[in-house]
């Protein structure tokens, strides 16, 4: 069971409980409580989205580290190795932003790159105190994150 499977179970438990309370409030026409639990579900979505994105982010950074270490001792030409050697210094690694890491693992412009970059924008919006810029469907997000976690590998 991956971390995403565990987080999914936990997310679903909480979401289900909030949905039931929201539904119960609607059936009794308790509009304030209904709105309150709708908002709680939004916050829960944001919290689990951030939690899951942080796991994906860590995986991507860890894989790029592996890639850099592997390439600098590879049998590539001295010119190619020089690039990886320069990238391997701590100061160079520190200068790489998240999208630079992502670009080392998947081609910019391809579907997976664009998908992660889009989620990254949402992550930044929430992490800086905003809301989702675009609506998300958590089942889709969870499914995407599970798949991306598997395919984002140093090759």
């Amino acid at each position, binding site marked *: 069971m991956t971390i995403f499977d565990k987080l999914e179970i936990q997310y679903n438990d909480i979401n289900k409980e909030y*949905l039931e309370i*929201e539904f119960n409030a609607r059936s009794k026409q308790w509009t304030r409580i209904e709105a309150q639990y709708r908002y709680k579900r939004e916050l829960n979505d944001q919290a689990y989205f951030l939690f899951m994105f942080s796991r994906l982010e860590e995986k991507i950074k860890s894989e790029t580290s592996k890639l850099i270490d592997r390439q600098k001792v590879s049998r590539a030409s001295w010119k190619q190795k020089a690039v990886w050697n320069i990238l391997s210094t701590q100061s160079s690694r520190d200068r790489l932003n998240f999208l630079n890491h992502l670009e080392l693992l998947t081609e910019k412009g391809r579907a997976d790159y664009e998908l992660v970059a889009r989620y990254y924008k949402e992550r930044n919006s929430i992490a800086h105190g905003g809301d989702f810029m675009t*609506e998300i469907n958590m089942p889709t997000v969870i499914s995407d994150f599970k798949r991306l976690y598997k395919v984002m590998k140093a090759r």
Partner: protein
Amino acid sequence: MSLIQHKSRTVQRDENNPRLDSAALKVEYEVNHWITQVKDLYSFIKGVLADSNIEFKTSTKIEIYEREMKEHDISPKDVPILDLYRDKNLIATFKPLGLWVIGGRAKIDVLTKKGGFILTDTGNNEAQPEWKVLTSDKNNDFDKKFILELVNPQ
């Protein structure tokens, strides 16, 4: 500046930037089109349950005001919520939440006594929505069988 009439509202046309104007019209068209699709979905549900003892209410509305609408100065829109009742007891609620969604088109929350689920349009044809019940493992068809099971849980 000149004024052009489009459906329910008047849109200001900026003569210096006609492209922006058409973008606003496109957003407004998409929102109106989506509201029609939501109403069509409700009609489908009512049709499936026509011979049952389920009562329907669409008297409450939810306000939709998404980023694309704000960016193009489109006014918020009211979209009806569908409530399903049996013997005066609420058994399901359909709450439309938005049109623009990452990884799909449209989002409708469905709430029941035992939790709920999300309905989304996964089709590629804007004119012919393919409503699916989302889970992280697979998407189920939102069809007659699903609706009957929704109102008659085992």
